[in-house]
């Protein structure tokens, strides 16, 4: 009677479901339509990839420092980028002072690195992040603009290229997010005056194109200011971009706020937490986590929209590349220029998108079932 139970041995899964073959079957050949699409995709790659690679890599010219070096090869002339590289990165920032830009970037990398290390505790990260948010812009401005501590002043008119793109996008993002959060909270406020103010602000800025905002900030604003009073063109652009993006951000954040159940606020209130603590500790952490995709979407749009500052005569990466392609000494290399600009934009935008995905995964505590 007491036959001992022999457990069934673990068998390997059928080979058709695992390994490379299993993956191929599941993802590429699971149905006739999928087979057709796979074949089509492979065909398109086969006809487009080789010429692309030939142009960009195999037939391209990499060495030399004049356009004459490019005549021998039929592919891309990357010398064009090499020669203009400094200009693309720093704009008209004086060459002798460019180390200051490098220092600013280096400072950011060193300062922000702990935020990306998983062994640093969260409260410490918050404190570091806030410190960075307050101190870094000041430090960066002092270094870039100079005029203090014996640093040669470099007027913002000389800032350009990737530097300018990063300044506008960086300031725009870090200022638009908190402002957007405040606007979103204000729009849901029970106080009619605050609510009306926020709704009006949001609807006004969302209703006008960014290009109009920039144009007005540089052409119209001086008309209204008393003569002699004139403030920096870049600063005006920054304010315009920030307010414009804050309006968009407010609506993204509001979407997140609306998704938080009323019970969360009630539970916080029942514990004696006031409005600001409830928002900061309970509602916003959940709401912002929900709208990370929307926030990053707005950030990416902002990053690319920086090129609109062309309209007010600022030369960000896109515009400086464009102006280099019209340089009479280097005519005919606009493809190289735009491919380079696209690659740089893509690199930054893809990094943001990638980071946001990892952030979402890390913050996931929902465990819905």
């Amino acid at each position, binding site marked *: 009677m007491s036959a001992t139970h022999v457990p069934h041995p673990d068998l390997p899964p059928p080979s058709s479901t695992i390994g490379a073959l299993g993956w191929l079957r599941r993802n590429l050949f699971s149905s006739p339509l999928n087979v057709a699409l796979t074949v089509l995709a492979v065909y398109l790659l086969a006809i487009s990839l080789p010429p692309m690679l030939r142009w960009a890599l195999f037939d391209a010219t990499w060495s030399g420092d004049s356009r004459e070096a490019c005549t021998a090869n039929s592919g891309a002339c990357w010398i064009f980028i090499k020669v203009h590289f400094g200009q693309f990165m720093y704009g008209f920032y004086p060459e002798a002072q460019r180390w200051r830009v490098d220092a600013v970037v280096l400072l950011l990398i060193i300062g922000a690195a702990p935020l990306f290390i998983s062994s640093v505790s969260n409260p410490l990260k918050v404190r570091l992040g806030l410190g960075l948010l307050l101190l870094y812009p000041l430090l960066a401005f002092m270094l870039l603009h100079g005029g203090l501590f014996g640093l040669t002043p470099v007027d913002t008119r000389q800032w350009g290229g990737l530097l300018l793109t990063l300044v506008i996008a960086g300031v725009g993002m870090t200022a638009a997010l908190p402002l957007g959060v405040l606007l979103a909270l204000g729009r849901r406020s029970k106080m009619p005056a605050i609510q009306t103010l926020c709704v009006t602000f949001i609807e006004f800025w969302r209703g006008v194109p960014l290009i109009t905002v920039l144009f007005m900030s540089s052409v119209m604003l001086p008309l209204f200011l008393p003569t002699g009073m004139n403030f920096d063109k870049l600063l005006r652009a920054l304010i315009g971009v920030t307010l414009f993006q804050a309006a968009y951000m407010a609506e993204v954040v509001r979407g997140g706020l609306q998704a938080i*159940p009323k*019970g*969360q606020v*009630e*539970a*916080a*209130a*029942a*514990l*004696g*937490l*006031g*409005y600001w*603590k409830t928002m900061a*500790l*309970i509602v916003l*952490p*959940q709401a912002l*986590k929900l709208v990370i995709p929307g926030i990053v979407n707005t950030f990416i749009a902002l990053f690319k929209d920086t090129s609109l500052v062309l309209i007010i005569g600022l030369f960000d990466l896109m515009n400086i590349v464009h102006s280099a392609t019209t340089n009479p000494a280097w005519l005919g290399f606009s493809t190289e220029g735009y491919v380079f600009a696209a690659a740089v934009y893509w690199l930054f935008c893809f990094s943001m998108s990638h980071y946001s995905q990892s952030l979402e995964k890390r*913050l996931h*505590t*929902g*465990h*819905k*079932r």
Partner: protein
Amino acid sequence: MPESSPVSPLAPLSGQVMIEMEAVHKWYGTFHVLKDINLTVQKGERIVICGPSGSGKSTTIRCINRLEEYQRGRIVVDGHELSNDVKQIEQIRREVGMVFQHFNLFPHLTVLENCVLAPIWVRKLPRKQAEDIAMRYLERVKIPEQAKKYPGQLSGGQQQRVAIARSLCMNPKIMLFDEPTSALDPEMIKEVLDTMVTLAEDGMTMLCVTHEMGFAKTVAHRVIFMDGGEIIEQNAPQEFFTNPRSERTRLFLSQILHH
């Protein structure tokens, strides 16, 4: 309606008044949801409120910690009359714990973080001390081993016990329960009720909206029956269940007891 003095089956009451509701009226727009609510709760007293759905039970207890406004009458909690002053409301809420039907734990925080949040940010306790207190209460509700988990990883009964512990961490003088077991599966109801019974044994002042009549019989000093926004009847549980005075109470009891 004759007012019956509470007969304590468990422990004598001190006579000190903790909550006083006087002629409280509330409207939602034109809908008169609370009609002349009068209720005095003594320190250490345990009250069960029952009644049909929509009778205003939740609204009544939510007025006590001012989660709901009321338009007429007055409510005095622990000697402080409720007003529109935000600071004063927050002060009263510190002393009044509340447990909700759907737990309302904070899903982005661990169990321990849920428990220490208010003690740290409202009571300004040092984190270490708040954590010690939290662990003590988590032990009391018998889930100290779940402290590092997120609410989403716990069963409903466990979540509700965490919610009770979270309230207790503020060391409240009064606990309000709004149908704490009605979102739970039968096997989890008992673990939550057991937790509430131990709380009762410690002399906590409790107002509990529930249809768990077994709980009412063993724990309550007084059972209150509400219907249509009014208190229809209140009595000691023994009397209330065996000899209800009003026809509506009788009907309600027959509905919830016999099926």
